[in-house]
Every structure is written in structure tokens, then in C-alpha cells.
């Protein structure tokens, strides 16, 4: 669905590249997370993929369109949800969606149904300018679903939202994923990436450091340990057992068979820990 080869971009048209020769591919139906801190090159890459920034150097194909010679009808196939809400404040929520709906040449979704999806149907006829930040964000989000996109660009889709609404958004993305939509997710929220993505790319200073599935990364970078909270002689004890060491495995078996276990979990690394381990930098 997306092929990027040796992509470079400079805002100053010189050797100061914001994106430095990155390459990756995204298959149809895949949810691909593009993870990195602010200024890493995430938005620049998404800007080029969505045609908002010119393609200066490298080859990019999006939804079957060569971005060197892109055509406007490409946008019938893609949807873009922006990090910053960008709706017409002087139009109502429904007017905003009705306007964009008419710009597509393909079958579109009923705007009112989209508003219902994110709980904005009751304020459908209110001016977007009167909305809270979260409401505007939800309106921006559902606008990107109007044309039932095959390829969906989501830029920080849950940033600034309260947990309940963020969960609502995540469930919508999961539903679209189940329907076969390809998703390009730009975020610095590792938990969301972990939950949604088939594969993630770590980008820092315009360079991709690593691409893999969250599972493989956890297996590769996580410690192979089990942490067990159990009770011995009426006292709570926490023990760590290696999953590789034979002696530790035997002890673990004994506790499972004879002991009183309160909690037991594998000590797998979080994506955030892996990111820091790989890049040497945090995400904020």
C-alpha cells in the first residue's frame, strides 16, 4: 500500500535533512506505527506521503500512485486525520462534514452516522467554534473517515483526549483494521502503538532505527523472566525466575504445584523501554 525508498527531505533545500534516506514498505491491511519523539521526522514523512509536502528526493508510492506524478483522485482512497484540529469554526459540525463529503467522487458515509460514532450527534448543528478541544479533535477524526479510506493516516489520534474518548477512538481504529483498512499511525504514545500496530518503526533524527512487530521486539529486547508474588509461611514473597535456567524452571514448577501464588507475570519490556534501549532517547 505504501512503498518508500531512500526518502530525503530538507526544509531549507540544503543538506540539513529532516528525513535522511528512510525506506520502508506497508502492506495492505497492515497497521503501521511510526514512533518517535517530537522533531524526529514523523510529521515530515506523513506530510510527504499525503502530498502536503513536496517529494524532493527518493521514491514514494502511495495507494498505487507514484508521488512524483501524483493525481488528485488518489485522495478518494486515503483519509487523513490531523494532530491539530482543523475544522471550519464558523460552520456547524454537520456542515463541516457535508462540505467535505461533496468533494469526494466515491461513495461516502452518512455524516450524521459518523457524528454518532464519536458522540457528537447531539451537537451536530452547533458551530464548531463553540466546541471544546476534544470535540474538535473528534470532528477532525471522523472527517477523515468520510470516504471510507483504504489507506488511513492518523496523526496522534488520541493526544489530548480524555481516556474514555481515547478508548472510543482506539476501538474505531480496531474496527477499521478488522475491515481491512491500512493504517499509518504516527504517535509517540507507545501503549496505543502496542495495542494497535502490526509493525512499528522507530524514527529519530530523521532516521529509522528499527522496524519490527511489537511482539518480536518484546521477545528480542525483553528479559526472559517470570515474576511471582507468593506466600510462604504466611509471608508475601516476590521471586524472579529465569525462563532459560533449568534450576529456576524447576523452582517455579514447585511453587506452581505447591505454593500459594498471588500474582505471576512475565517481565516483558514495554515498547517505550525498547525505544529507549534502541535509540538511547526518550519519547517526549
Amino acid at each position, binding site marked *: 500500500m505504501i512503498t518508500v525508498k531512500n526518502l530525503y527531505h530538507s526544509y531549507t533545500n540544503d543538506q540539513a535533512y529532516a528525513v535522511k534516506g528512510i525506506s520502508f514498505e506497508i502492506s495492505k491491511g497492515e497497521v503501521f506505527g511510526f514512533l518517535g519523539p517530537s522533531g524526529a521526522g514523523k510529521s515530515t514523512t506523513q506530510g510527504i506521503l499525503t502530498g502536503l509536502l*513536496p517529494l524532493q528526493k527518493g521514491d514514494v508510492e502511495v495507494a498505487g500512485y507514484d508521488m512524483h506524478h501524483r493525481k488528485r*483522485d488518489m*485522495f478518494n482512497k486515503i483519509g487523513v486525520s490531523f494532530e491539530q484540529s482543523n*475544522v471550519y469554526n464558523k*460552520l456547524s459540525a454537520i456542515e463541516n462534514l457535508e*462540505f467535505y463529503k*461533496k*468533494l469526494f467522487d466515491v461513495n461516502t458515509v452518512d455524516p450524521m452516522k459518523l457524528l454518532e460514532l464519536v458522540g457528537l450527534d447531539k451537537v451536530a448543528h452547533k458551530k464548531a467554534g463553540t466546541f471544546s478541544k476534544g470535540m474538535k479533535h473528534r470532528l477532525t477524526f471522523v*472527517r477523515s473517515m468520510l470516504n471510507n479510506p483504504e489507506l488511513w493516516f492518523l496523526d496522534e489520534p488520541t493526544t489530548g483526549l480524555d481516556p474514555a474518548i481515547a478508548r472510543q477512538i482506539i476501538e474505531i481504529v480496531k474496527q477499521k483494521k478488522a475491515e481491512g483498512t491500512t493504517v499509518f499511525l504516527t504517535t509517540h504514545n507507545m501503549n496505543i502503538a502496542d495495542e494497535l500496530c502490526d509493525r512499528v518503526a522507530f524514527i529519530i533524527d530523521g532516521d529509522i532505527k528499527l522496524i519490527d512487530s511489537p511482539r518480536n521486539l518484546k521477545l528480542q529486547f525483553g528479559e526472559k523472566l517470570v515474576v511471582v508474588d507468593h506466600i510462604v509461611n504466611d509471608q508475601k514473597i516476590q521471586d524472579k525466575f529465569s525462563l532459560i535456567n533449568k534450576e529456576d524452571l524447576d523452582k517455579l514448577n514447585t511453587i506452581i504445584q505447591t505454593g500459594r501464588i498471588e500474582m505471576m507475570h512475565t517481565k516483558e519490556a514495554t515498547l517505550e523501554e525498547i525505544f529507549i534501549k534502541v535509540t538511547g532517547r526518550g519519547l517526549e
Partner: protein
Amino acid sequence: MKKLWTTFVKDVKLSYTGLYFYIEVGMAVIFMLIMLFVVPENFDQTQTYYVYVDQSLSVPFDESQLASESTVVERFDSRSDLEEALTDKRSAIGIHLKEVDGKFTYEMVLQGYESDSMKALIKAGIEGEFMSAMPGYVDQTSVETLEVQSERMSDREAVLPVYLVLNVGFMGLFVIAAYVFLDKEEGVIKAFAVTPVHVWHYLVSKIMIMALMGVVTSLIVTIALVGFKINYLLFLGLVLSFNVFGSTLGLLITSFFDNMTKAMGALFFSIFVMMFASLAYFMPSFNPIWLKFLPSYPMIFSFRELLLENGNTGYMVQNIFLFFGLSAILFAYTNLRFKKTLTV
């Protein structure tokens, strides 16, 4: 075309709920009210002469012979009285009539602000007015008018062409730039750019909004000032072609900048240069060749022709086509530029 219409309808909704539309209409109404109730149909051009007749003058002088529709003459008993009166009325001209060596002569007493050409005009005026009043004066001056059918508009109407050019031709430069920068600031351009529409849809819609505003505001003023005695079909042609040109020029200038503050200098400079053409309009003696190359020159003179009873229709039609043609060329280049810069 459906997408263009959809975009235009959206822009109309945004415009009439926005400030710019009401500022434009409000300015037009204020201008109309000032022209109708403050500015007279024709400005008072009466010239006041303060005269002191010296004792040396041997022939009698009767100032009442000079009083006319355009002249007021007041006589003083001394030179000092005359000078004192002149300091009170700065638009008046003083004349000291006397006889030197048996010959009638006069001395002009001026305020000090008069230029050489103005002095020459005053001199000619005095000689025309006063000498003819002197016994024995024979007027041998003949006047020949080259333009036999020349018409003169009222002073109030004469201001209209400049207002119309400023309103439909050049205010658009600022307003259209403000619209584009506002869309950029709110990020809605980016949302629009990821839909299957062309950049020209966006640009033409903005030009259409400006044209609509231009037609509404110029109709308010023109109907109020000149009624229905002009050809409104030609009026619409002129307003639309000049407005489209001004808006396209505004878009082109806008395409070189990323915010209103940076664009302001270039926009101001453009309007400043364009307004030079009004000098030739109000002062026909100042009419250098280079002035005629400013777009505002044919704009002002086309509106002037429109207001004249026997205006030159060919000149107006020619300019309508000229400005639509120029707009098309400018637009093609502007569209190319915005394809690269609109969302960057």
C-alpha cells in the same frame, strides 16, 4: 464544476458570518453617506479678491463691475487693512491697484504658498478680470476648444471612478490575502488539500467571493450617486474584470509569503504605486507615459467613460477583455506557484 460550486457556497457562508464582508459593506455605505450628505455636488470655486485702490490711480475704478458667479471682490481703504484681511482668509488674493508714471499697474499680494504656475494663473486671472474693467481696455483674447463635445461630470461623480478602482481593483488585494492566510493559520487548507480537489478550485472560489463583494459594494455606491443613468451591463463587465485582476494579483503576491505580516509590505507598495494613476485623473496636466502602463490608469479612465453621457464604449469593452486576459495569464502562474506553496 460541482466541486468549485460546493467550495464557493462554503466560502459564501464563511464570508457572510465573518468580519471582512461587513467591513467592506460598511465602508461602502459610509462612503455613500459622506458623498451624499457631506460632499457638495460641486465644490465652491468662487475666488475672493481683496482690492486696495491707490490714490495715485487717475481713472475711476468700480469693483461692482467685477462681481460675478465665480468672483467676489471686496475693497479696502489701506494696504495694511488689505494685508490684515488676507491673514484672516488664506484662500483670498490681494491686489494693490496703482498708477506709475501715468501707466496703470498692479501689485499682487499673495499668501506665500502659491507656486510659480499658480502665480501665473492668478496673474492671468487678474488681468482678465480687472483689466477688462478698466476704461479703454480691449479684449483680444480668443478661446478655441479642441474637444467640442467635451463633458464635465459633477465633482461628486468625478470622485466615483477613483473610489471604484480602489474598492473593486485593489482592496481585494488585502482581503483575499487575509482570507488565504486565515485558512493557513486555522489549518483548513491542509484538510482541503487532502481531498480530490484541485488548487485552482480553492483559488477560483476565493476570486468569486471577492467578485461578489466587489459587485455588491460598488452597486451600493454607484446607484446611490448616479442612479440608473449609466449602462449597468458595462458597469458589471468593468467591475468584474478589474476585480478578478486585483484578486489574482493579490493571490500572486500572497503566494510569495507565509503570513500576513510579511505580505503587508508588498501589498501596500502595490496599492501605493497603483494609486499614482489618480494623479493623472485629477491633474490632467500630469500625464507621463509610464503612468499609462499602470493597470489602475485604464481602470480609472474606463469608469470615467462609463459615467460620461457619451462615453467611449469601445475603450471600455477593450479594457474588459484586456483585464480578463491579463487575469488569465496571472492566474495560470499563480496556480503553479500555489501548487508548490499552499500547504508548505
